[in-house]
């Protein structure tokens, strides 16, 4: 069963006006898989009744002994605006975790793991990176990450610290940054990286069009293991 737990906001980091990175400390710290998502409600629920209005967010960190959970939240509507207003350091919310199928390979211990993420879609990939580092397998990761501009690049420090430099492919879509292509990720970026499409695992996390584009191309090469996390 999922765990329902109150959580306290430890810190909030802004990545431009629309994106915030939250560090939360849940009261209950139970294991969750890297890549899972949770439900967050601002209602101070303390009984086991019907779950109230909430929003889903990918967990942007791997399970840790100290229990801290990181979330990356983009302001997209009234509920996330309310989150931005109310969730300040010291404030509390209620979490229900963990869910989802966007998880690391279950049996394969050696195949390449290709992660393709756009914007806040990087959240579960950060969780993967931390988990793979714990297992000493970060060299299996190839990360393709596109963001809008210098401000909106949550998690980049974490990726740079974990993913080997040649395996980290960055793209900035709306601003010139030295050393980073000023464009979207395109299919040839993936093809030219030399993956074996039968054995590699492809994780795609971004908007609907973004996901469709890569899933469609992966189908044309009969990629065996394709996972999507679309919001």
């Amino acid at each position, binding site marked *: *069963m999922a765990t329902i737990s109150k959580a306290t906001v430890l810190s909030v980091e802004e990545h431009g006006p629309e994106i915030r990175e939250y560090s939360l400390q849940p009261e209950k710290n139970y*294991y969750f898989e890297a890549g899972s998502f949770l439900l967050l409600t601002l209602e101070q629920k303390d009984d086991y009744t019907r779950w109230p209005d909430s929003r889903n967010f990918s967990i942007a960190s791997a399970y840790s002994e100290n229990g801290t959970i990181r979330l990356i939240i983009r302001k997209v509507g009234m509920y996330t605006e309310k989150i931005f207003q109310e969730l300040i350091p010291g404030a509390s919310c209620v979490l229900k975790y963990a869910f989802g199928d966007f998880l690391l390979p*279950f049996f394969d211990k050696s195949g390449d793991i290709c992660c393709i993420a756009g914007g806040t879609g990087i959240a579960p990939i950060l969780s993967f990176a931390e988990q793979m580092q714990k297992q000493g397998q970060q060299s299996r990761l190839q990360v393709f990450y596109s963001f809008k501009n210098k401000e909106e690049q949550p998690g980049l420090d974490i990726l740079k610290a974990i993913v080997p430099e040649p395996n980290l492919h960055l793209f900035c879509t709306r601003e010139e940054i030295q050393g980073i292509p000023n464009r979207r990720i395109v299919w040839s970026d993936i093809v030219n990286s030399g993956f074996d499409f039968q054995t590699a695992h492809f994780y795609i996390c971004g908007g609907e069009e973004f996901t469709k584009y890569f899933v469609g191309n992966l189908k044309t090469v009969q990629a065996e293991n394709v996972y999507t996390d679309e*919001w």
Partner: protein
Amino acid sequence: MKREEILELVKQYYAEQFAQKAFEPGKTMIPFAGRIFDEDELVTLVDASLDFWLTTGRYAEEFEAKFAQYMQQRSCMLVNSGSSANLIALSTLTSPLLKSKRLKPGDEILGVAAGFPTTVNPVIQNGLVPVFVDVELDTFNIKVSAIENALSDKTKAIMLAHTLGNPFDLDAVKAIADKHGLFLIEDCCDAVGSTYDGKMVGTFGDLATTSFYPAHHITMGEGGSVLTSNPLLKRIATSMRDWGRDCYCDPGCDNTCGRRFKGQYGDLPQGYDHKYVYSHIGYNLKVTDMQAAVGVAQLKKLPLFVEMRKANFKKLYAGLKKYEEYLILPEATPKSDPSWFGFPFNVRENGKFTRTQLAEFLESKKILTRQLFAGNMTRQPAFKDVSYRVVGSLENTDYIMHNTIFIGVYPGIDDERMSYILSVFDQFFNTIH
């Protein structure tokens, strides 16, 4: 009336109704197993019933998380019995989500015939073929030297119980499973708290099962669990338990994934309600929160229960060692530290008495005995029309069927009862000398 007042009354009720009665040798029954509880179990049970959530809720959440931690696993799924847990564990391996690794009808599952039938029944229920090899007389577990000969190109999994809490040779069995790419299911229904090489049983295989029937190490009345650290197996096992549905919403929740009306599954129309999409031919084997509530209170006592079982086993072993001329005493598997379910022994075939005569004597003195469950399963009426394969002889399995009994080591056996049990054995052996 406040809930606290009700719960306070429950404590009073416990004190009045369940006060322990004095032990009277020869009159008070000493069962082979029994539930041990105090006011805590009654309080959590009533507390859960007052929630009136009924299906799995806060207590199930707490039990699953804490029991998984205790068993050193990443996840635990509660089911309504240990037998259901075995059914779910084996059925999980038939899932199409496992692609080429899935078990298909006709595939063979290696096991033993000496044990409880519902370790084997799920194999038959899934259209698979059980393959039996013999067991050792002192550990009551699989004879590992017989395994390699029993494998065929159809063998896909090994499913074994840690007999009466005694772990089977996990080094050897795991090595064979890994070498041949076989799944391993550990039936830990009688072995909660047993360790092998310092690790909890259940952590060596792909899936593990436990039972919480009143005879077991802890109870919730009817109950059991499936444990795994593999998230895909967890996902499939949960689906198998919950009608085979694809959706993973907890009871009382809708649209957890946020895509309830967005997906396309099988040949169903686009947007068909995910709540009613079925990816497996499943069951409904869930528990209620009231059962889980009893389990939460029991779980706190589990470490003590395990120690008491181990201590009682040692006392019986020490007390019966002098009768080894007549009894084959149980031996813990090397590298293991069993949390014994009972104290099993074989009565050596001798000209003076039989297993039945000893059992009848013990029972006449109010010491309850049990045989090793189904004995040799292949000789049970239920197996008459079942397809199975036997490799080598089941000589020891037959010996166990004829000569094994076990008595209790459960925490309800205190020093007074233990002394009485040993004195009854002395009486018996005095009569035959």
